[in-house]
């Protein structure tokens, strides 16, 4: 088909579509809604993935590891840490000795114990009966990629003072308008002094990390004190500098040796942990996209509908075109151009709508959807393809009429 013919069909189709624009608007609404939903869902998935990456990795994630008493595959996969912890019996084989011992290792940047307690936490204006208390050390801040808004984090290992750092939401809930710095916070009957408040932390769905915005951080030794040495370390966060394989294997043997030659501690790279949640996320995104795609099919059917009507209305015109020499293929091309323009316009509006919806999501929730240019291109392309597929049946129907029969209809 010569390009000049396609451009003339193009111009004519634009004119026709414009003239029947109200009818067409309702028709392409299906495509608009379908495409915008699919794009939005994939964008949300992308955004969450990016947030997971950022939250867990930040920079140099390949050097971050988690030491755990159970293999990651056998335990929780992508669900809330606290919930899953309640199911694991507290026979952790990690202890503070590991932390001490490992800290001195060559090539180890930092190691932090991660212990979680549930306790009643009280501030000056309110209290939380199910407060989350995290016992760790000063390296936790860097590892988790979180930062302090005001005040300071736990200073040094084995900090004797009873300082506590609290998350933003907890600060607001327990202390209200007053700045909590220097105020007393009661943890399970023990008095602590608030020495720092964290910046807001983006909480990611499907993440294993607890909600830091509602937690209290204290030094691990203090956690041991207030629980009479029952502060179990569920995992340890490890950062190493270089030379991964060697360092890891020597660490692993060290841990095995400590635990009576049993290999029931596991060192897992951080990216592998997020792998599980990413897997779940991917699966979920795909599932929901498929459901949303059904509305795309409905939109396509709508286009087919309006094209059939258009063809029926223009039977006489088709007859004239055939009489002056249009082949079947040229008639089909004419109507395919029309239907693909229709669906493409629907696609553009749908993508724009997706941008608008995503803006709304960013403003009102913690999720930041990400629309990549590849997504836009694929969405635009699919909208044209939908127009071609669903417009082909009416187009072929249009072409099949004998010129004389087509001319007879008024």
């Amino acid at each position, binding site marked *: 088909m*010569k390009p*000049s*013919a396609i*451009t*003339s069909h193009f111009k*004519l189709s634009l*004119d*026709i579509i414009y*003239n029947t624009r109200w009818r067409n608007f309702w028709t392409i609404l299906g495509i608009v809604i379908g495409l915008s939903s699919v794009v939005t869902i994939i964008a949300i998935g992308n955004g969450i993935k990016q947030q997971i990456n950022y939250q867990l990795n930040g920079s140099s994630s390949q050097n971050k590891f988690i030491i755990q008493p159970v293999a990651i595959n056998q335990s929780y996969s992508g669900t809330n840490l606290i919930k899953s912890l309640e199911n694991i019996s507290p026979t952790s084989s990690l202890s503070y000795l590991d932390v001490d011992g490992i800290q001195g290792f060559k090539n180890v940047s930092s190691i932090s114990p991660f212990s979680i307690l549930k306790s009643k936490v009280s501030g000056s204006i309110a209290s939380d009966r199910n407060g989350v208390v995290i016992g760790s050390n000063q390296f936790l801040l860097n590892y988790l990629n979180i930062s302090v808004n005001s005040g300071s984090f736990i200073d040094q290992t084995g900090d004797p003072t009873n300082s506590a750092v609290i998350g933003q939401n907890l600060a607001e809930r327990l202390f209200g308008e007053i700045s909590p710095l220097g105020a007393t916070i009661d943890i399970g009957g023990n008095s602590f002094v608030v020495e720092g408040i964290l910046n807001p932390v983006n909480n990611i769905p499907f993440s294993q990390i607890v909600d830091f915005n509602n937690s209290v951080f204290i030094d691990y030794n203090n956690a041991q004190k207030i629980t009479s040495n029952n502060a179990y370390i569920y995992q340890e966060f490890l950062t190493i500098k270089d030379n991964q394989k060697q360092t890891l294997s020597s660490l692993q043997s060290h841990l095995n040796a400590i635990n009576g030659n049993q290999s029931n501690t596991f060192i897992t790279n951080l990216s592998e942990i997020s792998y599980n949640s990413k897997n779940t996320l991917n699966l979920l995104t795909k599932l929901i996209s498929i459901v949303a795609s059904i509305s795309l099919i409905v939109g396509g059917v709508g286009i087919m509908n309006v094209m059939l009507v258009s063809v029926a209305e223009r039977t006489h*015109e088709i007859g*004239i*075109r*055939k*009489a*002056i*020499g*249009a*082949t*079947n*293929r*040229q008639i089909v091309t004419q109507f395919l151009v029309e239907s693909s323009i229709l669906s493409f316009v629907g696609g553009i509006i749908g993508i724009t709508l997706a941008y608008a919806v995503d803006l709304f999501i960013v403003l009102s929730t913690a999720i930041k959807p990400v629309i990549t240019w590849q997504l836009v291109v694929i969405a635009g392309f699919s909208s044209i393809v939908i127009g071609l597929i669903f417009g082909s049946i009416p187009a072929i129907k249009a072409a099949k009429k*004998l*010129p*004389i029969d087509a*001319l007879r209809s008024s």
Partner: protein
Amino acid sequence: MSLIKLEGISKIFGFGDASSLALDSISLTIEKGEFVAVMGPSGSGKSTLMNIIGLLDKPSQGSYMLDNKYVARLKPNQAAKIRRDTIGFVFQSYNLLNRLNIISNVSLPLVYKGVSSSRRLKLASDILERVGISEKEYFYPNQLSGGQLQSAAIARALINNPKLIIADEPTGNLDSISSILIMELLTEIHRAGNTIIFVTHNPELTRYASRVVYMKDGSIVQDEITPYGQIAKTAKQLLKPSLIRTEEDSLAGVSVLMKTIDKIDSRKNKKDKPKKNRRSKK
């Protein structure tokens, strides 16, 4: 070699008890350069015949040879190409597309031929000038009078330089003055060397034609050459021999003329008709 050769063409509409015989085994030959009028009352089958000649419809039976090719049972796409390149159709109700302006309508056959946009516009413009409505190029069909619309339709029929122009009651929707103008236009086109077949049930219009075919109830009842046609026929016969040349003749020059005169003489003797006046004019 005739342009159109119909043999035993029949067309049946409908099935079973509701069937009707529109054309009853028609045979017709039309030569290049004729201006044929097909006349008859309503229902005589003239439009059906035009549709078959114009490849818009297929006959139920019979053979149709157009320009030495059998075209009656072509595949739709091949038929479309012949309609585009060889045949120009003019309809009673003009059949212009209302969404397009005049010049776009006229250049539409070129679109289907694949001609580039600028060239299309130029060709269409020229043709519109020839038929006399070039000032209405960018107007839309709803802004033109009947006569102008039919002129535009004729321009569209001409644009691909067809060998045959078919006009189905071209003046049917026009007033008397416009009718005359259109018929004059068609005559002009015929004089330029085109073959035209037109259908009419207005006997007055037959005086434009060189040959009239009368139809009734699906058959041809009479087929006569009009006086205008007679002149044309004779002129052709005279001209034909001088067109035959060999290489020798081209070099010889005068001897060609001598040979021609000899040939005419011998033909005259065969026919036994005195044509001395014409010869002396030569």
